[in-house]
């Protein structure tokens, strides 16, 4: 079976290719915007000389690029997504690009339509009404007001809604994975769930919340397993590792193992109160300062939840790398990336 992997050059995309090949897949078409950036993919492919790994340059914003990419494909793993840019750019790269991909898929003869696997996000889940400490699982309702959170969450939610809509209308096989915070060498040093760097100091906002980490290899393996499991059709899988650290523990370990950074902790009640003031000031001052904090954003990002990976484990997944070891590897790599430190 030929597999099309979009976003193959990304942080997770590379690891997905590796896990697919490790799990015996022999025919993967990797989609990148610029194949000159495919060196890491070629290195992974070189470890599996029996496998056919094809790199193709395509931009999902161009519908004309898509038909050739889908030719002969039995499985699409859609990992391409915008991580930065203006709201319009992020929407173009995540949502419009996905719509173009879906239009390409449903234009195929129904018998030749591939199974589709979407890498969504925890941001698609509606946590604001649940209250602090609520357990998040695959039955958690979708976010009702992602536009009030952040553009990334909004784009990911709209993307997932669109995939479900096409799945219902056209009936192709479909699987959703919702990773938590993907971390590892090459990834970001801090999730916003831990805190933000502001004016030269790291403001720790996560308190004792659990951080829903998933080591990049574990996440990629979960994607490969779900993508290849017949019983995953029509299912959602949240992806988080075991033994999750609290935000405070993560920050403490970072300071010990990467570099000492200046930080100040803000308790949740103060954060919530401050968010209300920021939102009020934004309105009163006619946008003189942006509403970077609002009560809604604070509730969804720093309210704190519990997480389960039971459904994923029932599919046969277990973490390849324990959290302690994953953090050690990530922090070791972070030491050589001072520019990415807060």
């Amino acid at each position, binding site marked *: 079976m030929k597999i099309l992997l979009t976003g193959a050059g990304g942080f997770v995309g590379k690891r997905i290719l590796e896990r697919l090949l490790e799990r015996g897949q022999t025919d993967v078409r990797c989609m990148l915007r610029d194949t000159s950036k495919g060196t890491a993919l070629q290195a992974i492919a070189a470890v599996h000389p029996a496998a056919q790994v094809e790199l193709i340059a395509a931009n999902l914003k161009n519908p004309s690029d898509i038909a050739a990419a889908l030719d002969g494909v039995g499985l699409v793993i859609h990992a391409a997504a915008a991580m930065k840019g203006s709201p*319009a750019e992020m*929407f173009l790269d995540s949502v419009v690009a996905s719509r173009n991909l879906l239009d390409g898929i449903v234009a195929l003869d129904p018998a030749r339509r591939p199974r589709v696997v979407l890498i969504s996000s925890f941001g698609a889940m509606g946590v604001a009404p649940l209250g602090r400490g609520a357990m998040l699982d695959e039955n958690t309702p979708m976010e009702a007001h992602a536009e009030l959170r952040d553009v990334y969450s909004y784009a990911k939610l*709209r993307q997932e809604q669109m995939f479900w809509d096409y799945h219902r209308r056209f009936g192709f096989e479909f699987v959703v994975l919702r990773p938590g915070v993907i971390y590892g060498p090459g990834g970001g040093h801090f999730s916003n769930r831990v805190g933000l760097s502001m004016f030269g100091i790291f403001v720790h906002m996560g308190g004792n919340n659990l951080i829903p980490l998933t080591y990049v290899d574990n996440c990629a393996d979960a994607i490969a397993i779900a993508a290849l499991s017949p019983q995953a059709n029509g299912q959602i899988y949240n992806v988080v590792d075991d033994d999750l650290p609290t935000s405070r523990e993560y920050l403490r370990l970072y300071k010990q193992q990467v570099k000492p950074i200046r930080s100040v902790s803000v308790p949740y009640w103060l954060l919530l109160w401050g968010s209300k003031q920021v939102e009020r000031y934004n309105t009163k001052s*006619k946008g003189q300062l942006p509403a970077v904090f609002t009560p809604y954003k604070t509730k969804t990002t720093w309210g704190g939840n519990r997480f389960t990976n039971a459904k994923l484990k029932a599919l046969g997944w277990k973490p390849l790398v324990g959290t302690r070891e994953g953090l050690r590897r990530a922090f070791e790599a972070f030491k050589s990336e001072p520019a990415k430190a807060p």
Partner: protein
Amino acid sequence: MKVLRIGIVGCGKIADGHAEIIKFLDGAELVAVCDREPLLAEQLAVRFGVPNFYSDLDEMLAKERLDVVHITTPPAVHLPITRQCAAAGANVFLEKPLAFDAAEGRQIIQTIIDAGLQMTVDYWPNFDPPAMEFKRLLASGVIGDPVHIESFIGYDLAGPYGQALMADGGHWVHKLPGKLFQNMMDHIFNRIVPLLPNVEPEVHAFAFKRRESVRGDDSDTMLDELRVYLRGGNVSAFGSLCSHARPVANTLKVYGTKDTIEVDFSNRTVILAASQKYPSSLGRLVPPFQSAARYFAQARNNVLAFRRHQSQYFAGMATLLELFYAGIRDGSGPPIAYDEIIRVMDVMDSIIQQVYPGGVPVEAGR
């Protein structure tokens, strides 16, 4: 005050800035947005709580009975969209650059005049607090008559706007006859042209590319450093677009017959030059204190403006829109003279013909 019904067509990056300003303006309501890509129209409407969104401009115009349409599309479609809006009786507020060239700019303006409507172009920095203060000082006569003008715009190719065009050889900016320069030059020459006598100026331009080639596409052939000398009557000027100097500056300096003034749009300062009024070396000790006092007074004014909530990032756009909307309500006319817009575009055409003759970049010194 009549509440104007506002629409936006073109829901890309800059549309956010317009929606953010309109949200806080008295006497205006953003009632609909439109983009030929319905998902882009949807995201802008949802994020800003706009009641309706469309992917068909004619449908929006027919259903919404708009007083003003903000045209935030790339300039290639400004003229046809202006014609559609004019036919529907809507005034238009256009993003810069207004058009591919001055001839097309004239057609846009004539379309609006013929329909008995009003238009203006988003020269918002010229309505920012420092620009308004500069205009006040100029009108007061303290500078005297302009003798020489220097207008400088920095550009960050690695910034949010720069990245968008550097990463995409097919970006609409690369399709403009003057490429990056055309997208930014309004902000250089719309400050110079109003200070020149109303005669056709002499324009001498040269440009070059300072960065290394990377991709081998249109993002590589684009020139990134522009220098222009102008002379109109007894006033001369020097305009620069500079993509590599840091910090990324945005300044206007006017040397007048009575005094010299420097406007810093980024730092929001408007400072008259200090001068030596006392003799000998002792006299040279005074001007730095004079400058310091002027900067201190400016800092205090900026703090007061912040307290009065007059320091928004796009404060100039808010002021420009208030003037434009007021002109529509009372029929008093647009805030920027059409003749001035055309004169700016004529200068831009002349520069583009010199640095991209026939669409081909000509590098100075090569």
